[in-house]
């Protein structure tokens, strides 16, 4: 057995050139062969790659989709994000547990299924959803859950669970997913048909610096959420010294409530790849990598087929569109799969992950444009940003920037989900008010909206006339709608829990702060909170925001601070002051419980 494991791992590592930069691939393949990555396998991988074993263990333990313990034949991951929770996660989770006779995180005795929960898997507009191995199942109902388990027992093939395929390319023979695009509003820019070579041929007709000038003229700001000027980022990279350069596409769409990149990847891959190719030309790179989140594994074969087709059409590879340029231009793209770590959507963490390390963000400076992937100047842009780039080349900077506001030009894809009758993807002009958006999505009853996902802001009706845009309500695309009767604190709790789980743990404020916020919030929700607890949460939040190392920690307290700003009353209603000399937070019964067992007597109750 060990001999075959040894041979197997040697073969897998060999296929990937024994390169640490293929760790994501190597570990994924080892896991698919062995079911997991046991301790012995880590030693073997380390030996093959000539790296310390502890770093392989560190890597495997970092990513939620990698495991050192054997799971069942199938792993079912239930999406537990705030929207799924509102739309039936509890009910569905209970049913799975009942039918399988196990709890979350457990495996059935016969090794049939391991049941887990997972943060947002990008299907909020068709929630509740789950992943059965790599296959996405959506709109789960009691009947559907029973059917899934029954069928899985019979044929054991998750792909056969898809009886009716979704719209558009979801029905493509290489996708065959039950996922729906739910495109509710086709905008003028991104969700429009394209000529596959147009953006590239136009770019090649200019000098690289001219291409960057066009992006600046279009005033394009990064669509991932931070809104950094794309042209400036590219210019830094172009001007940086480097033997080679890299173009990285952030397709690790992990912000809960965001799924617009999934729709772009499904319907507009050519525009994404065209944008990346233009980037290669502009910054002087010959290699591009798409970092695709593990949850979107079902799109991989399709995306690779699009890349193949583009190579065949002379739009990728050696000597791209030779008639349009005097100097040969080479550029190619490969896809790397993430493995379940939200923090890898942070650009420097994404780079660490691609390099074969734990997805820890890096210290800045140096910035990726100076020293990025493997130390080479690199740009990291969001899927939608690359689409915008292609569109700007297609229609010109003036047409692009005619739309939107003075500060935020163009359109934005928004993923709207939750308590609305028309959840899905909307391409809107920047400057649209939240109220207008809620009307489009038929969510007029909203009492609260989370703009920009958990790392964004929770706003109430008094803010519904505010505008979507980098100058007002910034968002990477996530809009979660909460209707009357929703428990605000439960929503905040789900976000806080999410950040606690997804923190990389590198820096103190994020690693500890999230735990403190969660514990304090839970105490308040249990009715054991005191007025000082609000102050405590504000203190912790201030330090997390100021002292955390990356955007995750700097924004992780936003659910708490923004809900305290908009819904302070919801907290205060649960607080009370304890009798003099007592702390309500202190549970004497719980504190002496262990001693009571040792002493074999019941503690006296009601000390509080």
């Amino acid at each position, binding site marked *: 057995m060990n001999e075959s494991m040894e041979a197997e791992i040697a073969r897998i590592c060999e296929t990937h050139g024994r390169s640490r930069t293929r760790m994501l691939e190597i570990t994924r393949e080892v896991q698919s062969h062995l079911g997991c990555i046991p301790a012995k396998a880590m030693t073997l991988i380390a030996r093959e790659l000539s790296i310390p074993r502890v*770093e392989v263990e560190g890597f495997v333990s970092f990513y939620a989709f990698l495991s050192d313990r054997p799971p069942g034949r199938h792993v079912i991951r239930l999406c537990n994000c705030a929207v799924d929770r509102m739309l039936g996660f509890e009910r569905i989770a209970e049913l799975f547990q009942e039918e399988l006779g196990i709890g979350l995180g457990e495996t059935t005795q016969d090794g049939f299924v391991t049941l887990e929960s997972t943060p947002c898997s990008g299907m909020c507009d068709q929630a509740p959803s789950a992943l059965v191995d790599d296959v996405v199942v959506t709109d789960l109902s009691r009947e559907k859950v029973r059917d899934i388990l029954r069928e899985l027992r019979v044929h054991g093939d998750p792909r056969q669970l898809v009886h009716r395929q979704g719209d558009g390319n979801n029905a493509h023979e290489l996708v065959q997913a039950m996922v729906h695009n739910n495109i509710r509003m086709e905008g003028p820019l991104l969700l429009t048909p394209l000529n596959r070579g147009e953006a590239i041929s136009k770019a090649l007709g200019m000098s690289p610096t001219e291409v960057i000038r066009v992006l600046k003229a279009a005033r394009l700001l990064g669509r991932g959420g931070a809104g950094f000027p794309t042209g400036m980022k590219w210019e830094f990279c172009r001007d940086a010294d480097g033997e080679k350069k890299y173009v990285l596409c952030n397709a690790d769409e992990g912000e809960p409530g965001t799924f617009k990149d999934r729709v772009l990847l499904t319907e507009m891959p050519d525009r994404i790849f065209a944008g990346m190719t233009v980037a290669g030309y502009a910054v002087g790179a010959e290699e591009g990598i798409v970092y695709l989140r593990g949850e979107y594994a079902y799109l991989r074969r399709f995306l690779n087929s699009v890349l193949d087709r583009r190579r065949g059409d002379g739009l990728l590879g050696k000597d791209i569109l030779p008639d349009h340029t005097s100097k040969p231009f080479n550029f190619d793209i490969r896809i790397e799969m993430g493995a379940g770590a939200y923090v890898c959507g942070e650009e420097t963490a994404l780079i660490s992950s691609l390099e074969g390390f734990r997805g820890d963000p890096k210290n800045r400076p140096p910035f990726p444009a100076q020293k990025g992937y493997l130390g080479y100047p690199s740009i990291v842009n969001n899927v939608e940003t690359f689409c915008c780039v292609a569109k700007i080349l297609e229609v010109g900077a003036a047409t692009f920037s005619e739309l939107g506001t003075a500060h935020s030009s163009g359109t934005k894809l928004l993923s709207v989900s939750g308590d609305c009758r028309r959840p899905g993807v909307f391409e809107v002009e920047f400057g649209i008010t939240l109220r207008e958006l809620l009307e489009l999505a038929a969510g007029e009853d909203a009492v609260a909206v989370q703009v920009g996902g958990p790392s964004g802001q929770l706003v109430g009706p008094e803010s519904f006339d505010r505008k979507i845009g980098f100058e007002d309500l910034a968002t990477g695309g996530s809009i979660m709608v909460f209707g009357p009767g929703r428990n605000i604190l439960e929503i905040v709790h789900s976000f806080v829990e999410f950040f*606690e789980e997804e923190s990389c743990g590198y*820096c103190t*404020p994020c690693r500890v702060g999230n735990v403190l916020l969660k514990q304090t919030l839970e105490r308040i929700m249990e009715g054991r909170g005191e007025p000082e607890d609000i102050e405590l949460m504000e203190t912790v939040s201030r330090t997390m925001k*100021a002292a955390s190392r990356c955007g995750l920690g700097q924004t992780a307290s936003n659910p708490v601070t923004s809900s305290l700003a908009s819904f302070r009353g919801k907290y205060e209603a649960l607080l009370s002051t304890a009798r003099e000399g007592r702390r309500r937070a202190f549970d004497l019964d719980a504190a002496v419980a262990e001693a009571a067992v040792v002493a074999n007597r019941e503690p006296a109750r009601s000390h509080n």
Partner: protein
Amino acid sequence: MSDRITFSIDGVRVKAHPDHTIMEAADEVGIYIPRLCHMPGLSPHGSCRLCTVMVNGRPTPACTQPVADGMMVESDTPAVLEHRKVLIEMLFVEGNHFCMFCERSGNCELQAMAYRFGIAAPRFPYIFPKRDLDASHPHVFFDRNRCITCARCVRASQELDGKHVFGFVGRGPHKRLAFNSEGPLAETDLEVTDKALDACPVGALLRKGEGYKVPIGERLYDHEPIGSEIEARKAAT
């Protein structure tokens, strides 16, 4: 030297080597910026965040940020000091730090830092995590309860000992120090003479048989607060 740049820390003009970080430049002129994960001779890590200063109004770790001409650094402001206090308190409640019987007491940087900041007890509730220890090595003892994941041993083993004894596994609150073996610490190539053992700022990595060797009154921080050795440079100039 004419190639020096000038910047300011808390209004004091400081001349610095352009390749230096804010912390290195501050150390040189005797301005102490508190730190736990940083150790001279090791590459900066930027994880404890205690050295957070305001650079032109933005919070930045002094241990990783290179100096620049005209930079305005604020280190001694109520807001910055408050962040540092919160971070120290976070480190205390995150682990199980029993100073009263820890053999590093008096020589412990975390404890000394709390004293320097006048922290008698953390304002946050203790998390009381359940953590294990590893006494497998004949000469070394590791107690995870006191580990603050500063990575000083990780870096020292790599950069000073030319080994790879330590690393991290898990993430978020579950991130923990691990050893480069399938088994316990004894199965690594750690030797009692390794510099990695001297790098631990707290009582997590200890040599066996040396406990309480230094009598109270003669320990590193018994008389002067942590950072005094750096501040003494200022007095000297």
